[in-house]
């Protein structure tokens, strides 16, 4: 192999890449999950999603439910906090919603509908209850055996996708309070801090739209991000300021429950919050 590499005058990494491409099957996608989020109504108590295997290998898939919600760390970065045994203070639906099937083998090209059935307690009060659906998939292929005397590594890759599940009973409503809004331009980034607290009895699933306006009111940049507030968030956003000239700008911030990735029938309408800040760039 080294002789061949030398003969072909290829850099080692390029040679390896070529060799691997020649022998490895081209993997496209693996297990698809659709839709992005599940909503269950107290009247129907059911929902479903579709799993599909678009890869060329069989996949073992497991579905589990855990209580969890997005939170932010001290640096303002969001993550999904999973709580194994939530107390009564948490509106968890993880214990009384079941997935059918919970484990499935998907052959290449196969699709599987997974149904979720809720059996809530009798005295459930009106509000929104939450869970996370965890879809774990791993390739169903045997570990390659070795016959030589070397040390070899056999790493198995497992993939987990976590998505939200909302169970709504009775009249649910939401809103968000914007306690604090700060923004500062540093180098080529506009750093924005939002301190948010949810109102109502349902999660605030919305979006934040940011518009940078110059002195004449012309839009210079526009950004948008999805926002999920379950309790409170102290969120930092880093918005790129590529090629924005130095000067004084206004940053218009708009918070609303407008979302394109959530079915319109599931969006809980709220009044839009508008704020404007002065920003110095450069």
């Amino acid at each position, binding site marked *: 192999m080294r002789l061949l590499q030398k003969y072909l005058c290829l850099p080692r990494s390029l040679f390896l890449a070529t060799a691997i491409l020649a022998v490895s099957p081209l993997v*496209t*996608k693996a297990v*698809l999950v*659709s839709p992005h989020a599940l909503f269950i109504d107290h009247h129907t108590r059911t929902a479903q999603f*579709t799993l*599909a295997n*678009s890869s060329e290998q069989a996949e073992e898939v497991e579905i589990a439910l855990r209580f969890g919600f997005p939170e932010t760390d001290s640096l303002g970065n969001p993550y999904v906090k999973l709580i194994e045994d939530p107390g009564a203070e948490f509106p968890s639906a993880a214990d009384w919603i079941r997935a059918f099937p919970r484990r499935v083998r998907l052959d290449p*090209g196969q*699709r599987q509908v997974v149904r979720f059935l809720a059996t809530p307690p009798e005295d459930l009060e009106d509000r929104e209850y939450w869970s996370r659906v965890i879809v774990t998939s791993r390739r169903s292929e045997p570990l390659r055996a070795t016959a030589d005397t070397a040390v070899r590594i056999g790493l198995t890759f497992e993939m987990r996708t976590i998505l939200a599940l909302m169970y709504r009973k009775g009249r649910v409503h939401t809103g968000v309070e914007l306690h604090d809004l700060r923004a500062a331009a540093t180098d080529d980034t506009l750093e924005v801090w939002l301190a948010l607290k949810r109102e109502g009895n349902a999660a605030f699933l919305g979006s934040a739209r940011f518009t940078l306006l110059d002195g004449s009111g012309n839009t210079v940049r526009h950004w948008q991000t999805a926002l999920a507030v379950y309790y409170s968030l102290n969120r930092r956003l880093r918005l790129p300021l590529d090629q924005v000239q130095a000067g004084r700008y206004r940053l218009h911030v708009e918070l609303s429950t407008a979302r394109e990735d959530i079915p319109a029938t599931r969006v809980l309408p709220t009044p839009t919050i508008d704020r404007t800040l002065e920003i110095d760039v450069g």
Partner: protein
Amino acid sequence: MSTAPALRLYPRRQLRQWFIVAAAIVCTVTGARQLASQPIRPRGLQDLQFGNVLPGFPTAVSRLDAVNAGKFGIRGVNNAEVQVDLTLPASLVSGGSNLTVQFGPADGGYALRDRINESLPFDPTVPLVTNLSNRGRLFIWLGGTVVPTPVQAPGAYSGTIVLTAAYTGN
């Protein structure tokens, strides 16, 4: 005096031929006037619905699927021969994204009654020449397959299918 002796000049056989030709001419003219007075009328009766599809997973709708297959109805002169052409899109469109749609040689179906299970297959990519029923009706069904790529952009895609119908005159 003028007509009767003249007719008497024709032999009986020739006279019969004259009547046949005259009758044929009358029928032709009458039929043509009927075709003209009763124009062919196609109508779109049901959209072709592929429903929700996943990227990378082709989804087919059978022409025998009463709920999702596309459907046209045609009305015209009883028993008249018609030509049906379907203008089919190569892709459905959502904003700037295209979704490939394919129509196979058995994705078209036609029947003289509104009975999808009685329909006979035809290739929707080539013209169909057939007769309307004795009540002047024809029904067309259309299936097909959408072929989303593995990275197909999400969204609602649509495309127009146009049916053109005309009497052949035969």
